[in-house]
């Protein structure tokens, strides 16, 4: 079973403009409150991977959790130009704790 995947990038305009050059769909976000709506919209449009810059991801952990155990869309936090905020790392730690019972790395 194989299909084509659509890849989207959500974030502040200055950070994600560059992904246009490589053929990803980019969706600049101005207000943080728009992020939720955008994710739901992208899910309806059958996007497989959504890269989300960490600064816009910080307020919407509940949305990230909701999609965590579904196959799609895969929401991946990425750093923006100011560097990483540790949201992605936190998710890894959470996974370890969930699976093993304690943080062993």
């Amino acid at each position, binding site marked *: *079973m*194989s*299909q*084509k*995947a*659509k*890849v989207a990038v959500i974030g502040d305009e*200055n*950070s994600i*403009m*560059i*992904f*246009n*050059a*490589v*053929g*990803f769909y980019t969706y600049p976000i101005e207000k943080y409150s728009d992020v939720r709506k955008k994710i739901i919209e992208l899910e309806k449009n059958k996007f*497989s*991977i959504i*890269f989300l810059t960490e600064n816009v991801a910080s307020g919407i952990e509940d949305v990230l959790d909701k999609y*965590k*155990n579904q*196959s*799609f869309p*895969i929401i*991946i936090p*990425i*750093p*923006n*130009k*100011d*560097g*990483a905020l540790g949201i*992605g*790392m936190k*998710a*890894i730690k959470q*996974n*370890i704790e*969930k*699976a*093993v019972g304690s943080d062993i*790395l």
Partner: protein
Amino acid sequence: MCAQIKPTRMELTRLKHQYQIAKRGHKLLKDKRDEMVRQFMTYIKKNKSLREEIEEKLTEALKHFSIAESKMGEDLVTEALLCPEKTSDVVINWVNMMNVNIPSFEFKASGQAQELPYGFAFTSGELDRSVLDVIELLPLMLELAEAEKTCNLLADEIEKTRRRVNALEHVVIPETKKNIKYITMHLEENERAATTRLMKVKDMMLSEN
């Protein structure tokens, strides 16, 4: 529980069967859990190192990009990047691992990898560099997406399996054992009662004659 089961041979056979199945299921699920944890460890290590690498490199690339933007002006950058010649094709394949469906991505860039999607006349070297950096990072980013999803799904499945193992180990198996013992005792007791009754009747018949 004991009060509700009937101490009959039928029930005993049923419970013994159930006990066998529970033990077998417990062993299988335990094996599944152990193997999944092993797989999970390899993926989570990969996930961690990939994320560290990407966080570092992408921040760097985006920094160059913002320098390029301030050098060239926002409009020019937008103009250069807005109409991409390249399209990135990502193909999803599904892999079944321990009964968990995990996606795996294959990245196919159309056009040449080292080709920039705009003309060189109005753009700066910084922009070229950052775009090339990002192009180089793309396969890694997809790998990260794959690893992270795998870890999420595996962690979820491991938790579920662990619950099942625990439920079998601490509830279902002891309970069935207890019930089997109860029925066996009861049947033995019945047997003894029958024997004594027979002996009694024999005595009575002998004394009557």
